[in-house]
């Protein structure tokens, strides 16, 4: 399967905007690098959300302004927040997501690659709800939503919901459950580009 080149589905910013709608007021949220960090720009007005991400403010080497009510803490405390279950929600990128919730987002396992994991494994192990934002397929057109991940895992059965350019999909005990289609996209279009069973929206049944 190859991409047609025609612009179908959401842009990266629109994906971030869609995910932002689902972030509850008052949540403690961790945003990964890449599309996930764009989510912050789209939190609906009136919702106050606290981001805690040492990578976002540090490794990204961006100038970040502290908001009133901020606090500084060391890395063990920072990851105690993550690993101790104190972060409500995390938005991460993906290389592959499996229909059982397995997530692979740190390595393609290529033999010559320099392995680097950062805090991704801590996040998926410790954060209550994991949202994934990703293009539905790779640039080569390979599906990223799969039956079983072939890349090294970041965590097992961790993804709760996936926001792609084509759809919003929940990971359920029965596998991928379509929740919402992007404008101009239908079930078959998404299902063709998903390498696992995709349950249709209930009203479509």
């Amino acid at each position, binding site marked *: 399967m190859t991409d047609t080149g025609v612009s179908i589905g959401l842009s990266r910013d629109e994906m971030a905007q869609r995910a932002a709608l689902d972030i509850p007021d008052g949540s403690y949220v961790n945003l990964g690098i890449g599309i996930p960090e764009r989510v912050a720009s789209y939190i609906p007005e009136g919702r*106050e959300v606290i981001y*805690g991400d040492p990578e976002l403010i540090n490794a990204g080497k961006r100038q970040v302004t502290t908001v009133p*009510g901020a606090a500084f803490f060391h890395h063990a405390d920072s990851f105690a927040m993550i690993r*101790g279950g104190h972060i409500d929600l995390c938005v991460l990128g993906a290389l592959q997501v499996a229909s059982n919730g397995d997530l692979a987002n740190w390595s393609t396992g290529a033999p010559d690659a320099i392995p680097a994991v950062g805090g991704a494994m801590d996040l998926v*192990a410790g954060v209550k709800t994991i949202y994934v934002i990703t293009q539905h397929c790779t640039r080569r057109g390979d599906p990223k939503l799969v039956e079983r991940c072939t890349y090294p895992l970041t965590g097992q059965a961790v993804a709760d919901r996936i926001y792609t350019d084509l759809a919003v999909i929940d990971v359920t005990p029965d596998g991928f459950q379509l929740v919402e289609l992007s404008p101009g996209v239908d079930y078959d279009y998404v299902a063709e580009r998903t390498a696992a069973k995709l349950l249709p929206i209930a009203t479509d049944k």
Partner: protein
Amino acid sequence: MIDKSIATPEAAVTDIFDGATVLIGGFGEAGSPIELIHALIDQGASGLTVVNNNTGSGEVGLAALIKAGRVAKMICSYPRTANSTVFPELYSSGRIELELVPQGTLAERIRAGGAGVPAFYTATSVGTPLEEGKERRTFDGRHYVLEHGLTGDFALIKCQAADTHGNLVYNKTARNFSPVMAMAAETTIAQASQVLAPGQLDPESVVTPGIFVDRVVAVTHPAYESELVAQGMSYP
């Protein structure tokens, strides 16, 4: 708008349920959240498991909670202190359970609970009666015992100042167990001499970040346990 402030101690403790595990800050009277404990006595929850280093003194604060028969079990390192008569009486007559934990193990177990560590090894208590029933393991030729993380349904703590985001600073050694208890409880309730707007605490000096705190309640002039005991007060 995040605003974790609650008007009164009474309103802050309404949902503490029978049988809950409650982490109560303080080391002796330093850092003891007396007003929150008294509100809990008024609220009426019973069958509680309470985690505190001691068991209170006189008949106020934690000792009053125990005297009221609300505590089924104490987890602590030092249940005997000056003016501590309530716990010894109940314990001697078999009406309250005690889990005795070395003080550092207690602090570390609470931190572990808050940090997502279900268990860790420590050299403390090896070869003593407090090792009984625990798994022993050797690392690099030294013996250690396995201890488990400790969490609570609620934490009641006292601090010097809070902001409405729940960031806290403490007063000197009254800090003691409160920062780790705030990490380890499902719901952390802090009484503060001052509740400030966000931005009024220096982010560099915040000791407990707001993420660990759910409710803050202003208790502008907190009572001191030793003064109440000296006055012969018995709560309620």
